[in-house]
């Protein structure tokens, strides 16, 4: 059973219960991720990227109405574990999350060093001084001066806080690190610095990354694989080289065309309309309403087609 993959997600489904009905935030998502690779998950706001990350890490809010599918980490099925087993053995220990707006997720009344050391103490059971030594090493990895261990979050700039949050995710040496919009609130220069850190970490630590972002241009720096999400579905999975050169799905094409390029003479494109409501998504292809190449078959749910190793969920490639 797929021993060679680090992470394998099959038909993952996460629906939320609301007063208006079930929100189908993640609706049957499958992909897999190899050791030492990084996958970028692209998509507009509200397409279910963050929900998918939360579903993989089982960080669920209370109003979940259904949560099914299979998640295999190094061949072991995680969905069979109960919450306590999951907490003890998987979260932080095997995979960790750098949450969205991580720079605001630090505790204002604890020193950042203590916060970074805490997961190591809780999940690896090491003593405080060992954990602090590990935290110090992680600070070096992400490029934060070691004397910052004794500072509070408000004494650090946005970029430094983001690095601290990344250090916290690394301190337990997990196999997989999920980064949710790690640079979206930062300036270009800081963004570039953080991405340089991530690139270096990927080489040094041999960890795998899942990077969730809507920033297509920056994501290309780190990506080995790209998955594009639209309205709760993954519509395309491809290796980064071929994706950035010629995306397959009409949505990916439009998305790529809407990125303003430096010194480009082409006017950036845009996508008319907005994504469908996930309360009652349209039958058939969910992008059909906004799609320039729609035809009669799009009224039915498109299959996921394998095209030279790339997967695309579109009738055009059947």
């Amino acid at each position, binding site marked *: 059973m797929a021993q060679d993959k680090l992470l394998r997600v099959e038909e993952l489904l996460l629906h939320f219960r609301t007063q208006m009905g079930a929100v189908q935030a993640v609706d049957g998502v499958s992909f897999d991720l190899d050791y030492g690779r990084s996958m970028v998950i692209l998509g*507009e*706001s509200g397409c279910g990227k963050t929900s998918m990350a939360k579903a993989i890490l089982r960080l669920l809010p209370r109003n979940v109405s259904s949560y099914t599918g299979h998640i295999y980490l190094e061949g072991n099925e995680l969905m069979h574990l109960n919450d306590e087993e999951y907490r003890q053995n998987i979260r932080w220990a095997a995979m960790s999350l750098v949450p969205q707006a991580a720079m605001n997720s630090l505790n204002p009344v604890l020193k950042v060093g203590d916060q970074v050391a805490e997961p190591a103490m809780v999940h690896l059971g090491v003593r405080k001084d060992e954990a602090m030594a590990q935290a110090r090493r992680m600070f070096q990895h992400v490029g934060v001066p070691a004397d910052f261990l004794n500072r509070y979050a408000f004494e650090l*700039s*946005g*970029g*430094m806080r983001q690095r601290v949050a990344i250090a916290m995710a690394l301190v337990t040496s997990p196999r997989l690190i999920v980064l949710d919009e790690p640079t979206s609130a930062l*300036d*270009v*220069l*800081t*963004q*570039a*610095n953080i*991405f*340089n850190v991530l690139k270096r970490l990927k080489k040094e630590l041999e960890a795998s990354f899942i990077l969730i972002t*809507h*920033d*297509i*241009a*920056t*994501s*290309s*720096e780190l*990506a080995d694989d790209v998955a594009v999400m639209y309205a709760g579905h993954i519509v395309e999975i491809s290796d*980064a*080289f071929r994706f*950035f*050169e010629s995306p397959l799905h009409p949505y990916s094409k*439009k*998305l*790529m065309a*809407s*990125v*303003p*390029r*430096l*010194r480009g003479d082409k*006017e*950036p*494109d*845009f*996508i*008319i309309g*907005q994504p469908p409501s996930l309360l009652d998504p349209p039958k058939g292809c969910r992008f059909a309403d906004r799609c320039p190449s729609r035809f009669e078959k799009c009224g039915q749910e498109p299959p996921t087609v394998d095209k030279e190793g790339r997967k695309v969920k579109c009738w055009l490639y059947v």
Partner: protein
Amino acid sequence: MSINAQFETENKPGNSTLELINVQNLVKYFPVRGGVLQRVVAWVQAVDDVSFSIYKGETVGLVGESGCGKTTVGRTMLRLTEPTSGTVKFDGIDVFSLKGGELKDMRRNIQIIFQDPYASLDPRMPIGDSIGEGLKIHNIGTPRERFEIVIEMLRKVGLEDYHAKRYPHEFSGGQRQRIGIARALALRPKFIIADEPVSALDVSIQSQVLNIMKDLQREFDLTYLFIAHNLSVVEHISDRVAVMYLGKMVEFADRDELFRNPLQPYTQALMSAIPIPDPTIRRDRIILQGDVPSPLNPPKGCRFHPRCPVAMDHCKLEEPPFREISRNHWTACWRVE
């Protein structure tokens, strides 16, 4: 002395007759109060001696990291915040000397599009009323005529008539930003300050808003000051681009010139950090050490010297003047000859 002073003003960027906006030596310090008596204990030097001009019908992009003072420049020009010193001339009229009714009349000609489309619309007001509010304040037309202008503006930004009766929460981010544009345009201003108009939007709709702004500029003969931190967006929309660092303008040039031939080391670092959506391109990045220093106590000499990869001793001592290096290319750097 007088000759010298005249010489100095003539050497500020653009003293042309075609200019619509002329900003000279704009300074804005914010007081920091502390202690029991709330005395002023320090000054945040948000904008320090910035001069530039904007010609009729052009778009000037203003870029820089967060906290460099670009928004303050925009707000001060509109007198949403009062300046510490300096002058801003709009069509030859000194904006800072205006009072009461005159100021109100001037503001009709200068409008602003705010950064956050979620926060800048009144949630309890139908958007038709929001768009028409400026018309009402300035006593333009009858209610019926005002309504017609509102409908016309809605159509111009690609919305429908019936949207006028709806509330902001019923719209998506891109639609709200277009409502913000419609509101800014309703008074038929000559000059629009757009403060990060697309940075809160998804990339798939950013260019839609930008294209609308470009079309309307042609149609109404508008002049834009486009404040943003995304250089690709600025490159796309601007005719000329100004770069700010820590309250100072460090470079100002025509767009193509600036992107092709950035002179100031900070601008060069910014340019090298621009992400390109193509994994095959290898980039040589200029990595800046450290963070932007606090504007409370900015470094002596050139404000960029602690992070500058090519700083010399002289940079620590004396502030470089903002001078014209080649035609229409202004920069402040001792390294540039």
